[in-house]
């Protein structure tokens, strides 16, 4: 899975030096701790993205929270890639405790199978992820194991169609 060539993860701005050394330290130590399980996708000023195997998502998240104080989720989203038959889940982690990491956002990405979309919930590590995961569940149909409430949230209670953010859900007239 992790050997796949990710066309969406190219570096956009490689010329600038990283102004914050801590951020690159995070990536380095994370990769050292979980060798082969973590893959660096890109590194930009104040932003970086790492790709994690779905099985080790929880332990990586726990490591990041406990070691570096990435304590809350700025955003969490899922993206449908029908060509690769996968759904990518992104957790944008930020920190309130660590003063040096205030401007920094780490994109923790993982991929699940599209047909049997099931991922481990991070709700016990980041309580702030609760509503984001519920939203992802109904918008993309990813079931979060360990999340207490996988149920409709934004959509009507009687929604019986495909999850709307999947690419094969067509809008009328489009």
């Amino acid at each position, binding site marked *: 899975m992790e050997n796949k060539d990710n*066309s*969406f*993860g*190219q570096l*956009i701005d490689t010329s600038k030096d990283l102004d914050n050394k801590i951020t690159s330290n995070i990536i380095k130590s994370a990769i050292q701790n979980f060798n082969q399980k973590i893959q660096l996708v*890109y590194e930009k000023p*104040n*932003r970086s*993205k790492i790709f994690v195997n779905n099985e080790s998502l929880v332990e990586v998240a726990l490591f990041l929270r406990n070691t570096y104080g990435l*304590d*809350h*989720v*700025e*955003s*969490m*989203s899922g*993206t*449908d890639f029908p060509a690769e038959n996968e759904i990518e889940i*992104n957790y*944008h982690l930020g920190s*309130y*405790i660590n003063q040096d990491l*205030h*401007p920094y*956002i780490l*994109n923790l990405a993982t991929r699940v199978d599209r047909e049997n979309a099931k991922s481990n919930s991070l709700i016990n590590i*980041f*309580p*702030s*992820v*609760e*509503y*984001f995961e519920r939203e992802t569940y109904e*918008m993309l149909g990813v079931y979060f194991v360990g999340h*207490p*409430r996988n*149920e*409709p*949230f*934004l*959509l*009507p209670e009687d929604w019986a169609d495909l999850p*709307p*953010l999947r690419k094969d*859900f067509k*809008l009328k007239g*489009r």
Partner: protein
Amino acid sequence: MSTLDDKINEINRLAIQITKDNDDDRLMNLSIGPQHPGSGHFRIVIKVDGDYIVYADPDIGYVHRGEEKMSEHRNFIQNIPHLERPVIHDSTNIIYSYSLAIEELIGINPPRRGQFVRAIAAELDRLVYTTYWLAIYGIFLGHSTMFMWPTGDRELIIDLLERMTGHRVTHAFSVPGGVRNDIPYNFKEKCLTQINYFEKRLKEYEDIFYNNPLLRQRTEGVGIMNKEDAIKLGVTGSVLRASGVPYDIRKVEPYDVYDEIDFKVQYMKSCDTFARAYVPYLDMKESCHIIRQLLDKMPDEGSVREKIVGNVKAQPGETYRRVESGRGALGYYIISDGSTKPYRLKISTGSFRNILALPFLLVGSKLGDMPAIYWALNYWPIEADR
């Protein structure tokens, strides 16, 4: 006072229990909303034991319009009008971070004067938003004068923005590459006059509203969310700053020209509802201060917009940009596949993150505190629903 983890477990246990229809006869089920004078476009299902709330569950989505899906079918410029609709009274800020993200994807930089004009519009919009918020807070607490005064003064700032952009609330003013048009003639003087008047009025608001002993009694020591809980719940904006975390994106990750501006991050350490109600007020004061500096430092001439073609293609890649809106961090996560439309667009709004704190604050408080706690969360339902 139990810890946050206990509360989370308790709420989840109750949620499961209620979905199983294991109702306790002692409790009364109340559905606050969507037609309720104390709710906006959403519903809170609460259970009360006497006057105490034992369970609260926000039921949002009444204005869910599928903006994220719709924007996959429109190109980058066409997306602007419908993306600003979630917060029509703070529309510059919600487009601000979109513009920043698209600028990063396309690879352009707005001219310096354009950055200043954009920042001025954003700060004025923050004033418009916060005065409306304050007005609704007044009416929620039964203070009808506090509804009328801010809505009246808000019109003056709206007049300024209308002169500047051409519409009352939905400006579509900030675009990728700068702002749509230059500021009108004599804008600077008008703006300064208006800001001076508004600061005088802010003082009067404090006298009639924040210094009112009844309001103090109602809000002080109510709905306490201490620093650790606030961080754990990942709240943002004024709610976070009222819990003693001085975190303002304008300061910690300055965008455009905010690194040249001298301002203080307003925060309070009392962690209660009064702090959450008072921090936006302090923000308004700070915004007036910022607008003065922006007007002062703005270059007198120069272009305000870097023109891009209508059907511009972005480089493939992804970006996450955020600004400090009236409700806190407002981020756009955009994935582009190199075409003229975004492949995936995700809006992470402050309201959606703050509403998570609502059940934790409501559980254990009294029914009478419900409107005070709810609206002090700086929550705008449409923005959360998108």
